[in-house]
């Protein structure tokens, strides 16, 4: 287990990258603490798998360094980095039994037979596959196959980091939940550094202590699930996390005052900087229907179970509000009230208001 440091990491799949857009990863600096559970979250093509493959050593970065416990491993191949990786599709050795599959990484490293047996049984116990140890791995169901893939990663107790590359993609929804909690439990038991790559916010938020949100090869925000939800540093994070995502409205801003269609709107704190493209961000959870505020017309009401989502039109801008209790009818005029301490100004996508102390 190790602390992982990424220093000025950049990567391009092109031989001679010139412009910024030639890079799949643009300048990544990151510190991951030993034993932490991290998630890399972002849409497809944002560079998260590239980053993962760089950490595991399957890819060599164009620029920058990777350090495991302050040891530079940038030039080392995967098998010398002592890492484990679980892939999107279960990778199992078809002709071997479950036992042999789990023992494989240890046997390749010449671990003593008795030690192998103890470790394999320990891991099998954790994954609840003990009764399958003698079965041929090819006869297993997809979720059990994926468990074995995970098991091969966890069986070595000296791994620096265990990485998961969207490991639940092929798993049935009802088993996803089970495997996810299993994973969380495993992390608490083995205390290995774990990195979980996904585009599914639920998976990231439930698994990780710290979530790294990526977009276009850049890290947009690093934070706990609560931080990401409550104070998105970028409109992208606001959009990407939360269901429905954060409302983003174009507003005008002058001398620290924010207004929408001439109507002043209170924001959480002092406005920083000036110029640029000003936008207002507020989560639907903090928009309420009231007697005064911005006048809007209800376009759609969707019942999402415990709450309803009211979509109202402020002129030609749509704003969503999460509402408990009675909801207005379609076409009805309503007033929207934004909770000031949850209303933020974004300048060119990045947050531009100071938090209320």
């Amino acid at each position, binding site marked *: 287990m190790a602390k992982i440091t990424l220093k000025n990491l950049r990567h391009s799949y092109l031989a001679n990258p010139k412009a910024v857009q030639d890079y799949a990863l643009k300048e990544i600096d990151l510190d991951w603490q030993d034993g932490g559970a991290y998630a890399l979250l972002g849409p497809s093509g944002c560079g998260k798998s590239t980053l993962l*493959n760089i950490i*595991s050593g*399957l890819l060599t970065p164009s620029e920058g360094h990777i350090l495991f416990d302050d040891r530079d491993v940038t030039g080392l*191949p*995967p*098998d010398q980095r002592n*890492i*484990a*990786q679980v*892939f*999107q*599709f279960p*990778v199992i*050795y*078809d*002709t*071997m039994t479950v036992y042999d599959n789990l023992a*494989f*990484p240890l046997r*390749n*490293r010449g671990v003593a037979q008795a030690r192998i047996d103890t470790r394999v049984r320990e891991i099998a116990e954790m994954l609840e596959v003990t009764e399958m140890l003698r079965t*041929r791995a090819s*006869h297993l169901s997809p979720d059990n196959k994926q468990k074995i*893939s995970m098991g*091969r990663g966890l069986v070595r107790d000296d791994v620096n980091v265990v990485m998961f590359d969207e490991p639940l993609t092929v798993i049935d929804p009802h088993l996803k939940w089970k495997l996810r909690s299993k994973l969380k439990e495993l992390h608490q038991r083995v205390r290995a550094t774990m990195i979980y790559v996904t585009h599914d916010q639920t998976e990231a938020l439930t698994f990780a202590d710290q979530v790294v949100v990526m977009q276009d090869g850049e890290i947009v925000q690093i934070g706990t699930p609560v931080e990401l939800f409550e104070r998105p540093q970028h409109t992208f994070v606001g959009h990407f996390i939360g269901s429905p995502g954060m409302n983003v409205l174009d507003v005008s801003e002058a001398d620290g005052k924010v207004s929408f269609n001439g109507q002043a709107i209170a924001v959480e704190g002092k406005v920083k900087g000036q110029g640029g493209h000003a936008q207002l961000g507020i989560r639907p959870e903090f928009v309420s229907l009231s007697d005064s505020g911005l006048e809007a017309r209800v376009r759609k009401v969707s019942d999402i179970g415990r709450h309803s989502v009211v979509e109202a039109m402020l002129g030609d801008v749509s704003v969503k509000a999460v509402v408990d209790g009675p909801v207005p009818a379609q076409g009805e005029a309503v007033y929207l009230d934004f909770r000031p301490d949850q209303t933020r100004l974004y300048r060119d996508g990045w947050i531009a208001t100071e938090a209320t102390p």
Partner: protein
Amino acid sequence: MKTENQKAWFFVLPVLVLVAFNALIPIMTVVNYSVQETFGDNLFFWEGLTWFEQILRSERFHAALGRQFLFTFLILIIEVPLGIIIALAMPRKGIWVPVCLVTMALPMLIPWNVVGAMWNIFTLPDIGLLGYLLNNVIGIDYNMTQSPVAAWVTIITMDVWHWTSLVVLLSYAGLVSIPDAYYQAAKIDGASPWKVFRYIQLPKMKTVLTIAILLRFMDSFNIYTEPFVLTGGGPGNSTTLLSIDLVKIALGQFDLGPAAAMSLIYFAITLLVSWLFYTLMTKDDVK
């Protein structure tokens, strides 16, 4: 209400007719010949199993069968590993992929009798490129019309040249279907190249290899045209394989009865060995 009638049989009829005309009736004709004796004029006499007994006891048949098994054995033992090695060495990506694939496929596109003729000329000691080189440049006495060993080396080499590509292409198809994640996982698990081959590539190629081995077995076991054109079964009887011998009996000596009996035995052996191969190679899958 459920209507019950026998109309459905009509749907099966075309297939039955087809199978009857392309398999059943021809085979039954052979069966018919195999139990009778004829002296021409369409006169037939019942002979029972005499021909079968005669063939099974004939030393000539034993010799041809022995040569046939030796030929097929050598073909498989050379072509299968060689095909796998070439497939492993071929690039998986890039502009060389189509070049390799087409080069590999070329020998298979050449008609069988042309292959025989090509190799015949190729190996002529006085004017053939290979024959001349071996005899006059390297200094090996090589003449397949005189030496059985030279004849065997030539037909084996010819078949390897002609058909290894089939194993290559099938193995290659198996190899490219392996997702990258398997190789990456193996790297991370610290597997040696041999283990990657043994536990990833070979198992993934198994299905296509089964097909390749079956096809190569059947084709080489039934081979006729190429050795016939190349050596005509000679020198002496040294390259007279089963099919060549069969044609000699049927058309050379016009012994229809024994030839028919031999065909049926030949067919039964091919079928039996194919079945054995298939059962042995797929037995792990049914569990």
